């Protein structure tokens, strides 16, 4: 019996029955990018480019630390990127180049590392 099995047997996204603190009654109106991200998920599922179930698996595959640290839609968009790479639809380089282009367009200096 190893000490780490439970990490593999439980998904980082499954929470039923875990110890948890008091309810945190937060709500927020979606940022426009979050709403676009949700629309993107729905359109990708409609076309079965990334099904809703693939998205769920992709989010849990991010692992505990990322799942625990990123917000809801942040997890979605990173999961989409990973799944699109796995399916050969996009490459990491293509996305990195495009992200630099988007940042440059908005006036931000690029911070991507090219090593």
């Amino acid at each position, binding site marked *: 019996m190893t000490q780490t099995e439970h990490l593999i047997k439980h998904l980082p996204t499954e*929470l039923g029955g875990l110890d948890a603190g008091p*309810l945190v009654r937060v709500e927020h109106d979606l940022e426009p990018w979050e709403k676009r991200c949700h629309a993107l998920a729905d359109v990708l599922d409609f076309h079965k480019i990334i099904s809703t179930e693939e998205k769920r698996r992709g989010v849990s595959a991010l692992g505990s630390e990322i799942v625990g640290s990123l917000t809801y839609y942040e997890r979605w968009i990173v999961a989409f990127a990973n799944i699109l790479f796995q399916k050969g639809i*996009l490459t990491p380089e293509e996305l990195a180049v495009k992200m630099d282009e988007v940042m440059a367009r908005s006036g931000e200096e690029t911070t991507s590392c090219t090593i």
Partner: protein
Amino acid sequence: MNQQIHDHTPAPDSNHAAPGYYEVMETAVRELLFERKLITPGEIRRQIEVLDSRTPALGAKVVARAWVDPEFKARLLANGRKACEEFGISFYDETDLIVLENTDEVHNLIVCTLCSCYPRPVLGLPPDWYKLKPYRARAVKEPRSLLAEFGTVIPEDVEVRVSDSTATVRYLVLPQRPASTENYSEEQLAALVTRDAMIGVVKAEIPETKEMPQ
């Protein structure tokens, strides 16, 4: 706020703040998929409109109709999706709907412990708390103390029934009609039905009007 979805020159999110890392990622992924012609700007625009059109007001109207029309209520409990479709509420995400009736014997609440399944076609998007750990962990283990944190106390002789969505069925709670509403119009009844009542964490109540809201 205006959604800027263009083919070639998508504008950043807002005029006064630089986009964050994840917004840049979302914009880049979306534009690349447009370039590949896998999805179109029109589809994204349309789906945003779909999402914006789904609010708890839809569910409230369905509940109010069930309260006043026993035959509609029977159809709603037999097939939630089909009954909602009578109102033109389409189920764009291909889910089905089971409507859970609260009675004097049973109080229902809904949760998704694995992710954030929620009856979006009829209620819109879920609140943050529904998607966060305290709710999702405790709803299936200690629903009564969780409900108490919403101010809802269920008597011991009433069964608390928690539905955890794991597949393609979604749930909507049909709250009990508040007492002293015999003379309410359907519209007035719908105004009593909150999103939280349709999740099952509170009951539908006549609000106390001690003072006018600001």
